[in-house]
C-alpha cells in the first residue's frame, strides 16, 4: 500500500517538473498546425526562400512526419535578385530532404511583359503575381508560410489559417474567429488558405530554436566581411543588381543579415555575431525590430505590409 502511494506522489511531481519550456510549447503548437493542414487539405506546399523562418518551418515539418518524408513540395518565388549563396543553400536543402521544388520566377514575368520593373528597383512587391500564378497552376489549396505576428502590425492581426479569395486577397475585416486549437480550413473552389504555424514565435524564439536544434542557415546570417554602401539608413551589399549611386561610397564592413529577402531591398547590420549564440545575445539586446532595421519594402508607408497582403502577398 505505502509503496503505491509513494509512486503516485512521484508521478505527480515529475509531471509538474516537466512543464514545457516556451520553445517546446511553440514547437508542439506549430507541429499540430502543420499536421492539421496536411490532413485536411488536398495539396499543400511550403514557401521556402532559404530565409531563417522558412528554414525553421521546414525543420518543424521534418519533425512532424518523422521518420517519413515531408509530404509536400516547397515553393520559392525567385525575384531574380536573390543572394546567390541563399539560392545555393535552397538547392542543397531541397536535395538533402528529397523534396520537390517549384519555382515561380519574377524575371520570367518581366521578360514576358506581364510585370513591370518598379522605379525604385525593388522586386519584393512584384512577387505576388508569380506567387498566385504558381498556386493556381499547381492547384495548391494550402500554402505554409513562415510569417510571424511580431514582424508587423498587420501580421499581428492575421489568423493562423488565413483564407484567401480567388485573387489571393486577404480581407482583414472579415476573418474567421480562431478558437481553442480547432482550426477551420474549409474553403470553396478557387479559394486557398495561407497557414502560418509559427505565428506565435518571436525573432528571439526563432534564434533560440535554431541554436537548440542546431539548424543550418545560409552563412550571411552570421558576421562576415562584405563590400557595402549606405542607403536609406541601411548597409546595402554591392552586387550585380545592387550598385552604388553617385556619392554612395563603397566600404568593407563586418556585417550580417537579420532578414534575407531580395538584394534590392534588404539591408545588412553591422555585427560581430559570428555564431548562433552570438546572434541570440545580439537579438535579445537589439533596440530595433528586424524589419525596421533591414527592410526598405516596409518603409514605404505605415500600412505597407497590410496593403501587400490585401493584394495577395505572403
Amino acid at each position: 500500500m505505502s509503496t503505491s502511494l509513494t509512486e503516485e506522489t512521484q508521478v505527480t511531481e515529475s509531471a509538474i517538473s516537466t512543464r514545457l519550456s516556451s520553445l517546446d510549447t511553440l514547437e508542439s503548437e506549430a507541429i499540430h498546425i502543420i499536421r492539421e493542414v496536411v490532413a485536411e487539405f488536398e495539396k499543400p506546399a511550403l514557401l521556402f526562400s532559404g530565409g531563417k523562418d522558412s528554414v525553421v518551418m521546414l525543420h518543424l515539418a521534418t519533425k512532424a512526419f518523422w521518420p517519413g518524408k515531408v509530404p509536400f513540395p516547397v515553393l520559392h518565388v525567385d525575384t531574380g535578385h536573390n543572394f546567390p549563396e541563399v539560392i545555393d543553400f535552397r538547392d542543397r536543402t531541397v536535395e538533402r530532404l528529397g523534396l520537390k521544388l517549384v519555382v515561380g520566377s519574377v524575371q520570367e514575368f518581366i521578360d514576358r511583359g506581364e510585370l513591370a520593373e518598379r522605379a525604385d528597383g525593388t522586386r519584393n512587391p512584384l512577387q505576388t503575381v508569380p506567387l498566385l500564378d504558381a498556386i493556381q497552376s499547381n492547384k495548391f489549396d494550402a500554402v505554409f508560410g513562415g510569417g510571424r505576428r511580431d514582424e508587423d502590425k498587420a501580421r499581428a492581426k492575421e489568423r493562423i489559417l488565413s483564407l484567401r479569395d480567388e485573387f489571393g486577397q486577404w480581407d482583414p475585416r472579415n476573418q474567421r474567429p480562431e478558437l481553442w486549437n480547432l482550426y477551420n480550413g474549409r474553403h470553396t473552389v478557387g479559394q486557398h488558405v495561407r497557414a502560418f504555424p509559427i505565428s506565435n514565435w518571436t525573432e528571439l524564439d526563432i534564434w533560440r530554436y535554431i541554436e537548440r536544434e542546431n539548424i543550418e542557415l545560409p552563412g550571411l546570417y552570421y558576421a562576415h566581411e562584405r563590400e557595402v554602401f549606405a542607403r536609406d539608413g541601411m548597409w546595402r551589399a554591392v552586387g550585380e543588381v545592387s550598385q552604388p549611386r553617385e556619392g554612395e561610397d563603397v566600404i568593407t564592413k563586418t556585417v550580417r543579415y537579420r532578414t534575407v529577402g531580395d538584394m534590392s531591398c534588404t539591408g545588412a547590420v553591422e555585427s560581430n555575431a559570428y555564431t548562433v549564440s552570438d546572434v541570440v545575445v545580439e537579438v535579445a539586446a537589439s533596440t530595433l525590430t528586424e524589419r525596421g532595421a533591414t527592410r526598405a519594402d516596409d518603409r514605404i508607408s505605415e500600412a505597407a505590409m497590410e496593403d501587400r497582403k490585401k493584394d495577395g502577398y505572403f
Partner: protein
Amino acid sequence: MTTEAVLPADLETALPTTLFRFATAGSVDDGKSTLVGRLLHDSKAILADQLDAVARTSADRGFGGEKGGIDLALLTDGLRAEREQGITIDVAYRYFATDQRSFILADCPGHVQYTKNTVTGASTADAVVVLIDARKGVLEQTRRHLSVLQLLRVAHVIVAVNKIDLVDFSEPVFRGIEADVQQVGRELGLGSDGISDLLVIPVSALDGDNVVERSARTPWYTGPALLEVLETLPAADELESHLESFRFPVQLVVRPQGALAPDAVAAGLDAEAYRDYRAYAGQITEGSVKVGDQVSVLTPGQSPRTTTVVGIDFAGASMEEAAAPQSVAIRLADEFDVARGDTIAAAGTVREASADLYAALCWLSPKPLREGAKVLVKHGTRTVQAMVRSVAGKLDLATFKLEGASSLELNDIGHAQLRLAAPLPLENYLHHRRTGAFLVIDPLDGNTLAAGLVKDHPGDHEDERYSI
C-alpha cells in the same frame, strides 16, 4: 547596429522560460489599448523604431498637447482603418517576455462584436484582464464580459480598475467598484467555484500606476502590480492537465512504408527496422501518457477497443512519458484500424459516445441560427454533419438567466440541442476545456458560425451554479 547595449547577465541562466497566454477585454474608451501599450512599453517590449513611429503619428495628431506625450494605443492598432478611426477592430496578438515568462497577449476589442472577440481571445487564454473605467464602475458590458469568461472557464480573471488617477486615487471609489465586481462574481460563481479566481487591481494605464511597478500613489492598495500577477499565476495546463485523464485526438497516421526521410537515413536510421513503422500522430489535449498504459481507441460507431501503448516517439527520440500539450506519435500493441478523427484515451475514463449534443453556443456569425438548420460540427480532429433540433433559449448576460428564444443572432449565447450524423466522444466543457469544445461550421461557405461548449443534458444532475 552594434552590440554595445548592456546585456542582462542572467540571459542564459534565466532559460528556459515558460509560456503564458492572456487576453484583455474591455468596453469602449476604458483605455485598454493604452494599458496594453503601457505593459509592452514598460516591459521594454517596444523597440526604438516602433516607438519613433508612434511618436511621429502622435505628434501629427496633436496627442498630449503641449506635454508632447505619445499615444500608447497606437502601438496595438494594426490596421489602417483602426489607426484612421482610432478604434480597434480585430483581435491583435502581442509578444513580450520577462525573466520569468514569455507572454502571448490577445488584445480583444470591446465595442464591435465584443462577444466574438472575447470568446476568441479567451478560448486559449490562461488569464483574462477585464478593464473598468474607475469613473464609470461596473457597466452592463462588464457583466457580459465576466459571464463570457465564466462560460469559457477561464482560470484567472483580473479586473483592472483603470483611470484611477481621474478619481484622485480614491480608495472609497476603488473599494466600491471592487465590491460590485465581487458581487457579480458571486452571482456568476466566478472565483468561488474552485475553477477560476478573481482579482481586482487599481491602475492608471496612462501613467503606469500598478501596471509594471506598484504605485506610491495608491498606498491603500497592498496587492501586486498587474505584471507581477501575470508572472506568478499558474498557467491553465499547470493547473489542469496532469489531473485530467489522457486524451489524444489522432491527426494522422505516420506510416512511411519504406519512403523514409533521406536526411534521417543519411543520419544512420536503420531503414529495415522502420519498414513496418506505424504510429498515430497528434497533440495530447489533456492529461499524460506513459509507455505501458492501457488505452481505449474511440472510433465513431464502434465500441471502444482497448490496447497498450508500446511507444511514444517524437522526431527520432523515444520517450517514456508525455503530457499535454505535447505533439507526439504514439505506437500501440495491437494493429487496429485507427484513423484521423479517432481518439485515444486512458482506458475506462470515457463515457459512451453520443449523437445527441446539448451545448452552449456562442453565435459568431451575422447569419442567425435557426431550428432545423444543417451545420457541420468540428470536434477534435473529426468533422461531422449535424442538425439543429431545437434552440433551448438565449442567455441574458446581464441577469444570467436563460430566456425563451427560437433563434440565435450574432453575439448571442444560447443553449441548443443538436443531432449528429455520427456519435462523438463528447465531454462536459466544465471539466474538459478541449474535448468539451467544438466549432459549428456553415457547410455552404465554410465559415465558423459558433463556438460550442458541451453541456450535460438538462435534467441530468448538473449543478445549479453552473447554469450558464
